[in-house]
């Protein structure tokens, strides 16, 4: 009787391989460390932040970094360190919601288009093209302006401009998957379209979309920050990094700390996501695997 050469759980095996590749890529490690730190900061923000991030105290405004105020204070005398720390929550919330919303929109549109093909595909893809051809920052600005600037609407605006990638990706994946013998086998066994699409094709599209999502989380923060910069993002006094950079740009020369620290945090977190995403893609890319 045959016997498998080596029996191991697939999950463990994948994990092992991933860990192996992860360990080999120093940049990916750095990326993950950054993200873990980011997540920890967001999780424990109220404990880490020494001051109330929105409480004004004009008597101590514009103080340069010191032991009392690690990152200095802003024009309202708010502690920048505390604001930056609390800002991580805003950023995380935006990332999380945008990812979930745009990921789901994208995957559903993409899988539907890819699975059914033909006219459905044609229509859905043309819609995707429209959103793709639309200058996305302008689109986000317009939506933010239309809905009124605030956190929720910022999230909606960014989601509306960012689902296209996932749609294309999952469409491509769905097309690949739907002609696989294992899908035909279910058809042969009498499985209906919806069953095949949602139970069998869709799960296969999730992981490439997830990878892309990680890769794009950086972009999400940046778009949010750009909206903040243009004054269309999260409204004050909620600490949001992009708006902080924007507010501090008038102070850039003399009170460099106001926009520099949030700027560094944006750059760092985005860097973390990019390094990690890049690494994950390298790890999962079957072309680069082997």
């Amino acid at each position: 009787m045959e016997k498998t050469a080596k029996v191991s759980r697939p999950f463990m095996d994948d994990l092992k391989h991933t860990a192996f590749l992860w360990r080999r890529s120093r940049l990916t490690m750095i990326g993950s460390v950054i993200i873990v730190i980011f997540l920890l900061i967001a999780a424990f923000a109220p404990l880490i932040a020494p001051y109330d991030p929105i409480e004004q105290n004009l008597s101590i405004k514009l103080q340069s970094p010191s032991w009392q105020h690690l990152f200095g204070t802003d024009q309202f005398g708010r502690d920048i360190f505390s604001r930056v720390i609390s800002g991580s929550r805003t950023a995380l919330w935006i990332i999380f919601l945008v990812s979930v919303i745009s990921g789901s929109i994208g995957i559903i549109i993409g899988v539907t288009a890819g699975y059914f093909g033909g006219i459905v595909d044609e229509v859905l893809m043309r819609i995707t093209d429209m959103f793709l051809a639309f200058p996305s920052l302008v689109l986000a600005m317009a939506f933010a302006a239309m809905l009124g600037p605030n956190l929720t609407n910022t999230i909606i605006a960014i989601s509306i401009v960012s689902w296209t990638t996932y749609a294309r990706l999952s469409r491509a994946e769905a097309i690949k998957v739907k002609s696989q013998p294992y899908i035909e086998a279910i058809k042969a066994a009498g499985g209906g379209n919806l069953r095949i699409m949602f139970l069998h094709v869709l799960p296969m599209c999730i992981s490439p979309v997830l990878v892309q999502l990680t890769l794009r989380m950086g972009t999400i923060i940046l778009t949010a920050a750009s909206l903040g910069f243009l004054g269309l993002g999260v409204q004050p006094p909620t600490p949001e990094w992009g708006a902080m950079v924007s507010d501090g740009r008038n102070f850039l020369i003399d009170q460099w700390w106001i926009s520099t620290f949030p700027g560094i945090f944006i750059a760092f977190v985005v860097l973390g996501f990019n390094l990690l995403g890049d690494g994950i893609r390298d790890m999962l890319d079957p072309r680069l695997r082997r």
Partner: protein
Amino acid sequence: ATPKDTLVIGANTGIFITMDPAVAYEVLPNKIVAACYAQLVNLKAIDGVIVPVPDIAESWEISEDGLTYIFHIRQGVKFSNGDPLTAEDVLFSLKRPILLESVSAWFLVDIFGINKDNVDEKIKQIDENTIAITLNAPYAENITLGILSNMFTGIVNKKVVLANEVNGDLGTAWLADHSAGAGPYVLVQWERNNVILLEANPNYYGPQPPLKRIMIRDVPEASNQRLFLERGDIDVAWDLTPQLLAEAKKNPNVVEVKVPGHSNEYLAMNASWGPLKDPKVREAVRYSINYEEIVKDIMLDNAILVQGFINKGYFGYVEKNPFYQDIEKAKALLAEAGYPDGFEVELITSNTDTRKAEAEKIQADLAKVGIKANLVIVQSSQMYAKYRAQGHQMIIAGWGNDYPDPDNLAMSHANYRANQLAWRNAWYDDYAATLCEWGQIEPNPDKREQIYKDLTEYWFHNGPFAMLYQTVEFWGIRKEVKNFEEAAFGYGMLFDFTKVSK
């Protein structure tokens, strides 16, 4: 460094629309247009007071009933291209805004009652050198001349303008970026979002200005204006924030210039919305704001603490600031009004650094008395859309005066019938409105002054406003630039480029 005979100004010109005197409406474009055109009457600062003075109208008479004004046209004035300026040009120029239904002509239409249908009767050439304008009410002379000193009375060269007419537009398209006037300067180039260039008019009827050229470069970011200024690439930084100015003036080559402004900044409350209906609540709001900190810490003293609606230096100004931050009092008032725990309100304002800072500051102040203000910071166009539709709850905005008379401020801030700010804030108060309308036509200055004082006193505690401050206009300039302050005095109303030298 910039050339000796040229003044280089860095400004955000993104919002500039047109240089047609009949249409231009924004403050800085108006001043640029003003440099290119002689007007029927002009304004001048005399001993710190802005008064109407003759320009193209050498002199004028007012009819008995106070309704008709006869203007005598100055002789020997030439347009920049050398054509003589005649009463025909004046008539043409005065009718243009009305025929064009220009936005800035609303004074003529909505105040003077001159419109497309009756314009030929209301504005007439009497003889070769005189023009008559007939009003619908005997407005105080200061009001009439103040309104007529607006940019839309800039005199254009009829021949040139008509030569450039397309589709009966009376030359507006062409005039948007050309000039055909008799002012001290000529608009030689306007590349939008890039540069505006004025050159001295060799045919100017007054003395030649010391600077041959004025160049306005588009620098949208205030912080960049500062960089340019400090490096000497521009002579004047137009849109600095108080903070940027404070930092820039540490540079020995940079000087700050400040003049009192002709506008104010206020917090307004929609008197038809929820808790704000109650005058006690509005009073409570007025007592929760720390006005001093706004002037000192936000504006860095680039503002004047004025709590009435009439600017300091204006006829009828009330030298009294009854409000200050008194948290206990404010809380007590709120409790009296039935809101011991405060309430939630939406505070809208436009997206400029200053407004944002004020909004954040006021948000923090209101929080102290339990009012939770949610900021909505939008483009000013959107803010105004909402404001006009009475769709706001609280708003931080400002009013720039159109003519140097308290009437302009009273009508807007207190007379809901004028469909202005008072109306937008749903303050339908007939007592105040009546006082305003009376003030408009009261010929006796003393009585008039008393009317405005009474009105202010009433308005303080009943109105829908918390006046934050009267603005101060400020610039950062290179130290080589001379007499800038003199030129800028009265900014908002006037700006005299001919005074500046280097």
